[in-house]
């Protein structure tokens, strides 16, 4: 995957670039907003990782200009501002996701992966399937090995998010945002509790577990390997 990282902190940029390269991605780093916009418009990238505060041109203006130029490359904002409006501002400017510094590299990787595989035009899927687990989005029904599984509404959403990201790591924070719309860090084990309830329903009665815990990072749903 070709990733353009526009970040002016050399230490952070080097760390992220090295990590992404180790994961098999091609990562270009630019430290200036104007250069970044030029490069993002000229070359074709799969994902842009853009810091909010940049010399030359700030991240928000960069993405606005990019979108105005008709480029739909997915953008992940990095922000050290820590402001509660950063997310909204970022999304309004045309960003697709945001991540607050300091972040764990695994979190960044999970989000970049999720962004990159996002279908260019959101195709309307009515059913999802991972191994023998099926999710009917129209009837709001889950089945495994043909057996119907009763799920609460939030459990259904949780499973849907995990299945849409089949084979990829979905972090705890991503689940909080996408399933519960929680944009803060709860002090109790909200995610763990609900994942364990879901696991009891979709995995426990069956021989092969599909929902796997990725230690200290999050969860991944995939067929047995």
């Amino acid at each position, binding site marked *: 995957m070709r990733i353009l990282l526009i970040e002016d902190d050399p230490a952070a940029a080097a760390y992220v670039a090295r990590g992404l390269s180790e994961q098999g991605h091609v990562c270009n780093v630019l430290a200036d907003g104007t250069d970044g916009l030029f490069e993002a418009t000229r070359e074709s990238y799969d994902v842009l990782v853009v810091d909010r505060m940049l010399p030359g041109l700030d991240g928000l203006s960069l993405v606005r200009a990019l979108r105005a130029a008709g480029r739909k490359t997915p953008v992940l904002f990095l922000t050290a501002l820590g402001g509660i409006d950063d997310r909204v501002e970022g999304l309004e400017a045309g960003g697709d996701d945001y991540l607050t510094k300091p972040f764990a590299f695994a979190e960044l990787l999970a989000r970049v992966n999720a962004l990159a595989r996002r279908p260019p035009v959101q195709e309307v899927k009515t059913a999802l399937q991972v191994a023998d687990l099926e999710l009917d989005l129209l009837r709001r029904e889950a089945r495994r090995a043909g057996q119907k599984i009763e799920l609460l509404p939030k459990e259904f959403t949780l499973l849907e998010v995990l299945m849409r990201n089949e084979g990829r790591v979905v972090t705890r924070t991503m689940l909080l945002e996408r399933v*519960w719309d*929680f944009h803060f860090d709860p002090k*109790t084990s909200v995610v763990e509790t609900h994942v364990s309830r879901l696991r009891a329903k979709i995995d426990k009665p069956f021989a092969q577990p599909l929902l796997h815990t990725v230690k200290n990072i999050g969860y991944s749903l995939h067929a047995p390997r």
Partner: protein
Amino acid sequence: MRPADLWRHSSFRLALGVSLCVLATLMLASGVGYGLMRSQLAARQDARVTEVFAAIQQTILQGDETDLIEAITARISASPDRATAYLLRDQAGKVLAGNIAQGGAPPGWSTISAARLGLAADTSYRLFSAAVGPYRLTVGVTNADLDGLQDIVLGAFGWAALVALWATLVVGALLAVQVQRRMTAAEAAAARVAQGDLLARLPVTGRGDDLDRISRAVNAALDRLAALVEALRQVSADIAHELRTPLNRLRIHIEEAAAKASLGQEAEADLAAALAQSAAIDQTFAALLRIAQIEAGARRERFAAVDVAALLAGVAEVYGDVAEDASMSVRYDGAGAAVVLGDTDLLTQGFANLIENAIRHCPTGTVIKCAVRAEGGDVTAVVCDNGPGIPADQRDKVLRRLYRLEKSRTTEGTGLGLALVKAVADLHGATLTLTDAAPGLCVALHFRPGAAPSAAPPAS
């Protein structure tokens, strides 16, 4: 104060302007009054002349010339100052009697200067001449009274103007000095603020005049500014205090890891501890910043209609399983919607904090009850537990940043959960009350849609 300075004062200029207007009005009024009085007086003079003329005419018609001359001579001697003028001539023009020179007064009414009548007085006469039988008679009265009236009116006006101008200067100067004194005080206060003393305030006399109103508005702005600066200062102090301890721990973990690594030992445990410590630092830091930003009030721009009942029910549902795992239960009672103007994200976090607080600080078996009531536009959201509660004397303190009950010191947590709820409540203009649920704690958020949210400057 120099005169040039005086001129720069609006109050002085105002006083002068008003008094000039008054003088102009006075001048107009005097002019009209003078005109009226003069025409009145002139009419009376003419009447008198007519009267005297008629009397003499009567004598003439009685026929005896000697009597006539005597009568006129008697009249002349009765008016030694020549207030009344008489001249009797025969048809040839010879003067028979009179106290004025033959001025050649034309027949009918005329006004002729005293000099032309051979008199020394600096005035004029109003004369009436006509032929009566074989004589030509002229009777007149002096205009001295009219001239006097003019002198009186002009004099009175002049003096009045002089006094008024003088009074204006004095009063204007006094006013200017007084206003200047208040302005100087206000300037001094503003200068103190500019130098960093945010507690300085402009003086308010309590008279409720325009200066008072401006001072009050400036003071209100300063109050808000001081509160914001104080909040910022508080955050910096909190950060310094609250983050140095964990930073120190972080440093110890890293030093331990470095020491072990240099000895070729496994340092993984220390590094994991260091990571966990850095995550805790980040959490505290983020929570402090978030509270400060909520307090700044900019978030209010994004307010929209929120169904508090649905929101709290949803949050209660999310935590139902979490509580169950901790051998507690969360219940939501309430029916129907309860809509307020607010921020969904922040209200969600506020309710989550309340329920999490109960889960984290209460023993197993605790029942957490959530409810939303809507009464006549007012909306009250309540989160109650039957746990140990908070002592009455500490209920205010737990709303402060970083305050933690002694028994919670050892448990995890930033000590910012309730402070954030308080900040969210303030942002929404809602009242946050902590009461004894006997046993347990009841936290109520009371929204009054009619009440304006706490005063805040319209943020950028």
